[in-house]
């Protein structure tokens, strides 16, 4: 599903050049659930941005679902993001003057889906994350966990190949974090490929594979026995 080869990325700050990714080789198969760990400055967010086509690598090749992602213009990139990727952010990034339902429907809006169908689909995904009765509420009327669930529903709405979650539980307390992870695990069980960037070990343990990044290189890539969030919550 995802195939990264020899990815390099550096940022220029004035006269200095900061080499953030130093030759990343990384492969993810369909249906995998991978966590990317590392201390701050290790390059994990940059890696996720490159995977999300929000940023472009200086060097190396990136293939997503058989399509080479290279030198895309913004229009195509937007289409690919819409079709292949779903984003989940640490700070939810919901649009605060739109209702939960409208937020979820947005990717479909940009896909050009008709209004009635869009509402139907969005409602389906809100049901899936258990927030159907909150459909008409604005984000600031929802709790943090609820907001993140709306964001997950939004990420799922366009039925993407891969979900990219950047610290999805970073702004949530432990109990809510586990509830959100339980939801994400459920989505993975249905066959969706999921990448989670996190620095919390317990969250990483809830994925099936942990990739450790340090100073722009992968130092460790191991498969782990997945801890079910449902069970963890009861501990």
């Amino acid at each position: 599903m995802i195939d990264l080869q020899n990815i390099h990325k550096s940022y220029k700050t004035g006269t200095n050049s900061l080499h953030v990714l130093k030759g990343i080789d990384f492969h993810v198969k369909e249906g995998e659930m991978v966590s990317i760990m590392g201390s701050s400055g290790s390059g994990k967010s940059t890696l996720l941005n490159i995977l999300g086509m929000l940023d472009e690598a200086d060097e190396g090749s990136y293939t997503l679902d058989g399509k080479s992602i290279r030198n895309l213009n913004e229009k195509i990139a937007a289409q690919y993001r819409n079709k292949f990727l779903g984003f989940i952010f640490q700070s939810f990034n919901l649009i605060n003057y739109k209702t939960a339902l409208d937020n979820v429907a947005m990717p479909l809006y940009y896909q050009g889906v008709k209004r009635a169908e869009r509402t139907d689909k969005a409602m389906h995904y809100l049901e899936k994350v258990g927030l159907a009765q909150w459909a008409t509420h604005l984000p600031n009327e929802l709790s943090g966990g609820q907001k993140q669930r709306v964001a997950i529903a939004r990420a799922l709405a366009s039925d993407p190949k891969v979900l990219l979650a950047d610290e999805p539980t970073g702004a949530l307390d432990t109990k809510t974090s586990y509830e959100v992870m339980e939801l994400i695990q459920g989505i993975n069980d249905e066959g969706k490929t999921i990448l989670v960037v996190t620095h919390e070990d317990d969250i990483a343990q809830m994925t099936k594979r942990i990739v450790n990044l340090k100073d722009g290189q992968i130092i460790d890539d191991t498969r782990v026995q997945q801890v079910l969030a449902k069970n963890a919550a009861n501990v």
Partner: protein
Amino acid sequence: MFNRDRWTEILEALNANRFRTFLTAFGVAWGIFILVALLALINGLRAGVSKDFGDFATNSMYVWTQQTSMPYKGLPKGRGFRFKLEDIQVLKDNFPQLTYVSPRNQLGGYQGSNNVTRNARTGAFTINGDYPDFIKQQPMDITQGRFISYSDIEEKRKAIVIGVDVVKSLYDKDEEVIGTYIKINGVNFMVVGVFQATNSDGNSEEEANSIFVPFTTFGQVFNYADNVNYMVATAEDETSITDLKPQILAKLREQRTVHPDDERALGNFDRAEAFGKVTGLFDILSFVGFFVGFLILASGMIGIINIMLIVVKERTKEIGVRRAIGASPWDIRSQIMQESLVLTIISGMCGVAGAAGLIWAMNYALDQSGPVDNFANPTVNIGIVLIALLILIIAGILAGLIPAMKATKMKPVDALRIE
């Protein structure tokens, strides 16, 4: 492009900060309000002044004799002379483009001594010797009886037409006027008509204080013979009297044995030229109105640009999120452009409506209080309103352009990083 979802998106965005939206919209509304109101006022002024010119045949000129300033054919300079009645016929024969050529003679005047008496009453009035055509060159309302006729001219009848102010000073109220006699310089004339000036042109009082006598009668009774004080020539609509003027003057110089280059021997007043000057003045005023109005509108536009830039800045993260979930740069740009366009057009409509209200109120006040000098019927035509709307649409697009470009210049990854 403008489907229901777009509208929802735009209204949501504009609603998110209502007070600011209102203030921004007010800037544009105010600009277009001033533009339209200014043009309406100028039109009112133009209409008022044009009304003063009234029904005058504006394609007319007045010619009178002065003193010669050059010796010619043995005649000295400084010679006084008069037009003769035959000159009128010469002009008519030589210039078929002239519809009317009327000779005129005058006695008395505004501040002259008493020259008219009726029974015990006396008055000082202007006495005009005229042809029947004159009423077509300077229209007046005949309120009783008739104007001078060609039979009056041919038979040299002592028939006169008097102004309403003459009636006021010589007659009692409700007294029968037609058929009565009044004495002018000791000669009895019968009143056959009463006139009222239809326009003012600054000397309505003088006009109302005048008396019209048939030209031929005037010449005989007051010893003018076939002398002509001055003449009024009107050209047909297709010919400009101003263009014709040099030829007419040349012909008259030839008739009166005046040196062809003697400019000072003949005086003239070109009504078409005077009218043209006034019309030109108002064209310039209209232009100034457009210019000033447009500048004020421009400041409103800058307000929109400003606010859209702030909106874009504030929504940087939102724009990043939208792009992350699949909005293309064009989606973002067109949304911003349309927000600015909708804001501009709606506020512009309010401005136009406000100006229309003001114009209505002014017209209503004018109707209630009666005519005002030099101001009448302020209006703007639909063309101007359409131009204003066109300016608004262009303004809205321009106002949205810069912020829209700015909105998509930042990479989504940077936009998302903004807190």
